[in-house]
């Protein structure tokens, strides 16, 4: 009888820990630190390392609301749209330095139309323009948001990023939509946005993005 109970306990333990030919266990879905049974994470990290080896440009990205900071490397540059990826498979996409998409942050910005605000910001001109965002709701339905933005030139600023000094112009973009309002900040040096604070969504909040050369 005791022998049977012993077997039963082992079986239960195995069942609770779980194992399968797919490499995933029942509990893995809920564990933040689930072991990488499918090898996906290892591949992502290897790809990131490869990008660094190839001297891909890098940025530092911080998620303000979660106090998270990560380095991203340029993983695609196509028609002016640049996508940057972290070792844990979070990505952001920028166009001319303006954020146009995120993936993997949760409450992601699926796409953004910044063709109204970008020319003013990059030309250091004050003015008013519209921007449009696309999100997904809880049922994978597309939700559009539009914002009216006031752009202002806040003057010259000197900025130090990880030891590098930049002479920049600070532009602010003050946007109001039906349910959200946010202010983006851009530090421009030449045509490059060397530092910025850009809003993703109500659920994630703003990102702080800065260039850094290694």
């Amino acid at each position: 009888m005791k022998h049977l109970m012993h077997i039963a306990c082992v079986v239960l333990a195995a069942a609770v820990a779980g194992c399968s030919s797919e490499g995933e266990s029942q509990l893995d879905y809920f564990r933040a630190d689930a072991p990488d049974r499918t090898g996906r994470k290892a591949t992502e990290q290897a790809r990131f390392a490869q990008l660094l080896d190839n001297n891909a440009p890098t940025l530092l990205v911080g998620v303000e609301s979660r106090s998270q900071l990560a380095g991203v490397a340029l993983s695609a540059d196509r028609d002016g749209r640049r996508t940057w990826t972290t070792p844990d498979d979070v990505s952001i996409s920028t166009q001319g330095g303006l954020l146009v998409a995120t993936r993997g942050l949760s409450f992601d910005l699926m796409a953004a139309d910044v063709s109204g605000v970008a020319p003013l910001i990059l030309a250091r001109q004050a003015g008013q323009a519209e921007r449009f965002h696309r999100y997904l709701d809880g049922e994978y339905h597309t939700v559009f948001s539009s914002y009216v933005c006031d752009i202002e030139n806040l003057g010259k600023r000197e900025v130090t990023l990880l030891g590098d000094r930049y002479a920049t112009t600070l532009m602010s973009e003050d946007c109001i939509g039906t349910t959200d309002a946010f202010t983006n900040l851009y530090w421009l040096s030449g045509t490059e946005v060397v530092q910025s604070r850009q809003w993703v969504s109500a659920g994630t909040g703003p990102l702080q993005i800065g260039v850094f050369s290694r």
Partner: protein
Amino acid sequence: MLPRKNLLALGLCLIPGVLQAQQEPTLSFYGTTGMIDMPTGFAQPDAQLSFATSYFGPTLKNTLSFQITPRLSGSFRYSVIEDFDPTQATPTRYDRSFDLRYLLFEEGDLRPAVTVGIQDFGGTNTFGAEYVAVSKHFTPRFSGTIGIGWGRFGSYGGFTNPLGVLDSGFENRPGNTGNINTTGRLDIDKWFRGDAAFFGGVQWQATDKLSFTAEYSSDAYRIEVQRGIVDHDSPINLGAAYRFDNGWNLGAYYLYGSQAGVSLSYSFNPKSPKYPGGREGAPDPLQPRYTLAAASWGNDWPSQPEYQNTLRTQLEAGLSHEGIELEAFEASGTRATVHVHNKRFGIEAQAIGRTANVMANTLPPSVETFVVVPVVNGVPQSRLTLQRRDLEELEGELDGAWSSYVRTQIEDASGARLDPLPGVYPRFSYELKSYMRSSLFDPDNPFRADVGAELNLGYMPSPGVVLSGQIRQPIVGNLDEVTRVSNSILPHVRSDAGLYDIQSELEVMHLTGEYFFRPGNNLYGRLTAGYLEMMYGGVSGELLWKPVSGPLALGVELNYVKQRDFDMLFGFRNYDVVTGHLSAYYDFGNGFTGQVDAGRYLAGDWGATFSLDREFDNGFRVGAYFTLTDVSFSDFGEGSFDKGIHLTIPLSWLSGDPARRDYSTTITPVTRDGGARLNIRNRLYEVTRGYHDPMLRDSWGGFWR
């Protein structure tokens, strides 16, 4: 690109999911929108789901409520009243019943919210009542309600039914005649009849979390007072409730001037998962075509076997990284076709998007057309044709989701025949996990459960052929403590469930060979043989007609089965039967799907089952069904006819990570032998619809995730 003015005209939806906690209206002791014992005129937000339990005096009520549409709400309640029937063998009354509420008028600036409701039908009518409740917020934090009630809610301060002016028959309410065997019938002849009475109350939201209620109740608790189990000293009820951040609500009350009560509820909305849109890792960004490794191959590559092999290997690796298995592959100079098996994504459109992504980042620049054929159980489900140029153009487009959908051709794939790649078949899979099985509503013990280990084995020797088995070993539990014996006069096709629990140790849940095939255009077929489910073994065949787009599908199923031995091993009992159904499935749009199955059930009875489900595009489902057959209500016994509520919660809804697994449960108030259908796995409609419209279209937002 969509013109700006059209975008603005689309309406600026709330960015959902997050943000301030919505203040849903409070729930009463009955688990429906109300104050303490009395209802209010408000309604819950559309699709809101709540579980509420309340206790005062001798009564414990457990209620599941669902806001089916913005106006219509339904509830299922399981109540336990101690010492309600002191003269019976079981003095405690166990009651299962249903409620419906309808919001006639939404609250406006001046207009109050008005709701009409019918409470507690289809059970023993212990709490039977009907009402019209009118509620208004006078300030954002202060609201008041008045109403008129019949039945139980017309018993204190009652007066002759005002509806008597329509017909004097309204003035009398038929009493509760009949015994336990007559429960389950709709007591339509009682509704809105008999004396009526006024009720009312006020509620004050003191802080964001704390609220206070005072109500005047029109329920005299006549029967309970008569039997000495409730003291009714005053019609005034008072209470306070605290709303936690995560959907939990706790309340404490003083009722009828004589006793304390407590209520606890959990409320959430399937439209708002914890991580709207998911939190899985990013798809690979599209690389410029001419920078791909394959660009260096020149134009001869289709005829060079080593390039074809390299392509295949790269596609396999890229897709496998996304959790998708490449089953077959063919490429010419301008067109490439892949057959894929999605192992990871619960949202099918996301699997298609990731597949197209990998193709765009692997195939030589000359390939312009991508053909993706999703495969389930070795059977092609549909054929999606996309242009590479569209992918490249729409990757960053604001309107990329809708545009990519309209530019994708979706067709039937019955003719899609490609030899599977070597190594794909035979496919062997196993899984060891834990399980819990529960059994509800036995008056001897309303909640019983077993917990144990489960082993799943699967073997696919070739496309369409599936050998599979599931074995369970209960380790701890009390399912085998059931003592109730079936008193059904029909063949015991389901009501001996207790004997299966008692006499089984190791349980062979199923052991089958299945064959899935495509007999023709828009047609899907299934043949199954073996131990089909817990209680039956035999053979089953099904044919489904389902076009890739369109709301309607039709099917026919025929089975010959024999009842299995109670020990759930390999023997059979003497009972055998031929069953079969004709089925019609209809997708109404807006998330509602209906189903009608007509035919012969396990006890040899003929009839039909009607189901209505509300599905959310994240996979969450709530539904209800009932079955009427030529078995009379009295022959059926307690409950009168078979009915149930069905709930499916996708794992990805809870965790935010993509998953193809979900938790499914069906709650049936009674398990008896009329209207019982074979519980066979992999009925074709559910297996097939994921890669068809409208399901693909409805969640196409996930394509670019």
